[in-house]
């Protein structure tokens, strides 16, 4: 059984289609990354899945419940950190965690323990007595994310939870999330930071203009879309390199200053072997060599660019 399963899920605002017939399958106990450029439809999809807004078409099943006919049943079992900030301006940090637990009907004793646990996990101990109104943007975001862990849930939606967090707070949050997934939680996660997605996510979907344009594990995405690698070779002397290498196929070669050769190829292993052979048989020594691995970021950029074209 899937935690999230949608078919042809759509949302239109007038003539504008914000989410255009998407099919999603998210397995239990996984972290599912949802990536896409600004305005792609990530937040709208999240609002649909969390039943905040009704879809204009399609089906969705969340945790085995038909989310269109029984939205409240779904909401009782999920946690949601929206992209938009939310806070109780007049309450202190600890009080707002406490009250949030109360709203979720968490037992008083458990509430008390969780407040302490979350204050320290999210590095909020020093500001526990401060009013939310007086916090910095990043501190407020930390409180908002921490607050969601006050209650039990089977599925957690996080819409750019790390936006505005400093690197150590960000890493702390990612590791906290990882530990919760070990305990069986499933997470649906959007971010613009691709290293984050790579570090955290088991599966990734890329959405653009309301349509899903790629879904896979980060590794498979790289294999599929990121076969092209960049090889830089620094050679000792300037010889008539371009004519020597002119016979090599399946690649693009640039000769920058004569001593640096930049090769782009999707058959990088084979191409590199051939080049090295030619260099060796002509007595040219290689001083430095680097292969730039494709990052998820490059894949993201190229996939989105292709889908826009």
């Amino acid at each position, binding site marked *: 059984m899937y935690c999230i399963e949608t078919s042809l899920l759509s949302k239109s605002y007038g003539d504008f289609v914000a989410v255009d017939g998407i099919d999603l399958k998210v397995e239990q106990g996984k972290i599912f990354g949802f990536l896409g450029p600004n305005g792609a439809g990530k937040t709208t999809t999240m*609002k649909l899945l*969390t*039943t*905040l*807004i009704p879809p204009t078409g399609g089906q969705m099943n969340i945790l085995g419940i038909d989310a269109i006919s029984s939205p*409240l049943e779904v*909401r*009782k079992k*999920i946690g*949601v950190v*929206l992209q*938009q*900030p*939310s*806070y*109780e*301006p*007049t*309450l202190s940090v600890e*009080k707002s965690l406490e*009250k949030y637990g*109360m*709203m*979720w*009907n968490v037992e008083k004793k458990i509430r008390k323990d969780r407040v302490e646990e979350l204050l320290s996990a999210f590095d909020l101990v020093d500001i526990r007595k401060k009013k939310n109104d007086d916090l910095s943007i990043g501190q407020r975001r930390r409180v908002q994310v921490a607050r969601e862990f006050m209650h039990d849930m089977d599925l957690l939606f996080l819409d750019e939870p790390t936006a505005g967090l400093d690197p150590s707070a960000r890493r702390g949050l990612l590791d906290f999330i990882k530990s919760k997934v070990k305990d069986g939680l499933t997470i649906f996660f959007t971010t613009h930071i691709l290293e984050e997605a790579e570090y955290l996510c088991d599966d990734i979907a890329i959405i653009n203009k309301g349509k899903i344009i790629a879904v896979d594990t980060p590794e498979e995405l790289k294999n599929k879309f990121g076969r092209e690698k960049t090889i830089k070779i620094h050679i000792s002397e300037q010889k008539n390199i371009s004519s020597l290498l002119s016979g090599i196929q399946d690649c693009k070669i640039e000769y920058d200053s004569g001593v640096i050769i930049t090769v782009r190829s999707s058959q990088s292993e084979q191409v590199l072997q051939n080049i090295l052979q030619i260099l060796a048989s002509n007595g040219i020594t290689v001083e430095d060599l680097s292969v730039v691995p494709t990052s998820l970021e490059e894949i993201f950029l190229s996939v989105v660019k292709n889908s826009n074209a």
Partner: protein
Amino acid sequence: MHEIIRLVNRNLTISLNMGFVIWQIISPLIYIFVAGFAYTALIHQVPFGNKTLDYPAFIATGMIGFNIMNSTLISGIIIWNDRRHGMFEQILVGPFTRAQYILSNVYTVGIIGLVSAAMITAVGYPLFFKQVEFNILTVPLVIFASITGSILFGSIASIISTRLKSSEGFNVIINTVFLFFAFVSTAFYPAQGAPPILSTAFYFNPLTYLVDVVRAGIFGYFNGLVATEMIILGIGAAILFLIATKLLSKLEL
């Protein structure tokens, strides 16, 4: 605990700050004692049903209604703040329905309204005890007035808070509307003796009905007019509540 009780608990926690409580107690006290005694020189006696009241007794009972109305500002402020600070959406992705959210606001306002009414009754009692005529209708009438008044004015505040975008607009409009209600009503002065246009205008104002019902309860004077006022108050509260609910559930997220 039931969802609505949890939401009421949260509403009370976020809205009961020192500033509000002081405002809620101090402002009617100023009216009762300062205005009450200052105007006694001008208005000696006020005819009310089959008896005549001292002005301080008249205004102290008027302040009970005034205070119920004032406390419903809370409902508008809660909705307004929840929208502005993202809590409206956050609550609605939680284990609650929009109807529960709305009802919790009504209950919050009802509780604050009842407590305020009790408080002002206690404070104003020395001023009107001589003319009080408690009977079996007293408590039901005052409670009826508190509850329908809370729902009615709470709905008005909610409607305003769902319609507006800027916070300056919200404060200006809500204060203007409530100021109009307060001074174009029988809370401060009787309809008799006011210019005819004004005394007619009094009866286009729900606060007049609210205050009349409270006075009917406290001074033990019940007649057909009061019964009609109660019916109008009840119907008005029901209609405005439906409108407020409709607007809030239509609110785009």
